[in-house]
């Protein structure tokens, strides 16, 4: 049991770190908004595309607002939503806030080529530097869910602290998939635990974990 939980925790930490690498806003990227959830490797890469039904560019308010069928197509991620608002800091630098709203879907690949799928009603990216400390977070709210081959995390909300490679969820519900073949091939079997469950019950597969307060992964 403890062994299995460890596998799950490692899997999610891995997801967070890999996703951080691949689903993060690019410094200085314009598409800021849209691309804010995309990556900027050091090497030159294909352009990021952002399509939508309409666009408002408000020079006075320093905002770009993409409306209707918003699609962000980046070499390492795809995002769709109905409304994408980017705050463009007057003083320069990367977008300070990017707000994706309504049916937000983000698909991205980690550096191992593993697909990850995030959905929520809203995803808010915030970046700022205070007293020399960089704060960079993505907050998923409203039916927030992040899924990959290891399992599915839901929460309200799910916080992704990109600056510290940390994933945190309040009211989380974690469902993980376990591939028995891979587990058996790559790990030693866990020590048998004392249980009151009847013989033949598998207490570790497809287990749901619920905790009342926030949980860290």
């Amino acid at each position, binding site marked *: 049991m403890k062994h299995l939980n460890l596998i799950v925790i490692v899997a999610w930490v891995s997801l967070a770190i890999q996703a951080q690498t691949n689903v993060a806003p690019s410094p200085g990227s*314009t598409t800021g908004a849209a691309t804010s959830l995309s990556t900027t490797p050091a090497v030159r890469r294909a352009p990021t*595309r952002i399509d939508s039904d309409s666009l408002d560019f408000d020079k006075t308010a320093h905002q770009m607002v993409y409306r209707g069928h918003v699609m962000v197509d980046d070499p390492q991620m795809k995002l769709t939503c109905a409304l994408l608002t980017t705050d463009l800091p007057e003083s320069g630098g990367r977008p300070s806030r990017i707000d994706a709203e309504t049916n937000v879907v983000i698909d991205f690949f980690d550096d191992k080529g593993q697909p990850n799928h995030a959905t929520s009603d809203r995803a808010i990216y915030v970046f700022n530097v205070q007293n020399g400390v960089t704060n960079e977070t993505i907050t998923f709210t409203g039916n927030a869910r992040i899924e990959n081959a290891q399992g599915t995390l839901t929460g309200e909300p799910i916080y992704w602290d990109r600056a510290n490679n940390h994933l945190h969820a309040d009211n989380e519900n974690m469902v993980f998939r376990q591939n028995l073949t891979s587990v058996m091939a790559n790990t030693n079997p866990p020590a048998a635990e004392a249980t009151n469950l009847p013989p033949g019950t598998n207490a570790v597969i497809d287990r749901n974990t619920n905790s009342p307060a926030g949980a860290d992964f």
Partner: protein
Amino acid sequence: MSIPANITWMMAAAGAGLLLTSAPGLRAQQDIVNRASNFTTIEYYGGTNQLQMKSRLSGAEALPQPGGLLIIKQLKLETFYPNGGPEIVVTAPECLYDPMGGTASSAGPLQVQTGDGKFRIEGEGFLWRQTNSFLTISNHVQSAGESGATIGTKP
């Protein structure tokens, strides 16, 4: 009729002609078929940056229309940062320009490019409101940006 205080109008004509009378306040020349060429109108920042251009709207031709409107051919709209650096450049085959209302609009295509040329937007149908520097692209927005483009940031 009055003109917004921080907007200065400039027009130049390629050929000799008459003063444009359809838009009071404008200083321009036009040929005998009511076509002004090399149309340019400039909006300046206020306050301490009053000599700094905020936006410049220009066109190869300006065709006066009823109500003081102008059809601008080969539109080029440029916006600038307070320090003078280029922000965005909007181009379109033509648009309808309202000098008094400070708007430019078209149902046709347009292209937008950031000052550094790294981010481009295409779409169909637009409205530019000069007074509050607000650009709406109405349909089929397609944009592409290179890594490191700097829209909305200092040049």
